[in-house]
């Protein structure tokens, strides 16, 4: 029996919400970053599910572009985290108050 479209959307929504919980509650910047990746994956799943339901491939092309941007984002983001750690010896976001007014 084929899986209905809403099943994938519900799974995507749950995974996205779990990612939001992580971003909002964790203080280790690496784990926050991983949760952002988790949210992106949830969105990708939704894209592919819709592409399959509409019998179109545009959704899959979008996921391809998201994958490219995610790879670039991870490279730059981890470089920034590494730079912060070198200067301040911390990955705790509560210690990163440089731009606090």
């Amino acid at each position, binding site marked *: 029996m084929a899986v209905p479209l*809403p099943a994938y*959307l519900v799974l995507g929504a749950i995974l996205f919400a779990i990612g939001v919980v992580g971003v909002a509650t964790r203080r280790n910047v690496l*784990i926050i970053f*991983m949760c952002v990746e988790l949210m992106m994956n949830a969105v990708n799943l939704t894209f592919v599910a819709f592409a399959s339901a509409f019998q179109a491939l545009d959704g899959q092309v979008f996921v391809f572009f998201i994958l490219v941007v995610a790879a670039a984002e991870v490279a730059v983001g981890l470089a920034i985290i590494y730079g912060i750690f070198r200067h301040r010896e911390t990955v705790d976001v509560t210690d990163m108050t440089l731009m606090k007014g």
Partner: protein
Amino acid sequence: MELLLFLVLAFAAIVAALLVVTHRHPVYSALFLVVTMLCIAFLFLLLRAEFLWVMQIAVYAGAVMVLFLFVIMLLDLRREERPWRFPEHRLQVGAGVILAAALAAQLLVAAVAVRAPAGAGPFPPAVVAARGNTQLLGRLLYTEYAFPFEVTSVILLVAIVGAMVIAKRRSD
């Protein structure tokens, strides 16, 4: 059969995602995130997106997570995340969970209401099965999406240069 496979993969993905969020040490979080990404990769396969299945494993579960683990090892985090301080952090966790629950409720209401369109789209399963998912996707990338495809090369170049500039040790 397909439904059963979906349920198993969905359950594994959700459990692993919860462990990513709740585990104290970033190395375990990263490894559980790999499990989640592999589950999503096999869900792509279930959706007949073979090319993205391979890309998900190679780029996300492979390259991105190796980069994450590499940086975690590089930073040598001896100090664990500080224990939760009672009043303020509890407020933060409560607010975060409530925010996410509200968001999830909205998304779930919308998701359950969605109905798949009845008519056939431009790429029905028979056509995709005959030509192959990867070939059709490649054709689409080099024709209709040629300009965005070219732009991605610039994005990657900027990311390479940017990452090196940011992570470079100052010479002075």
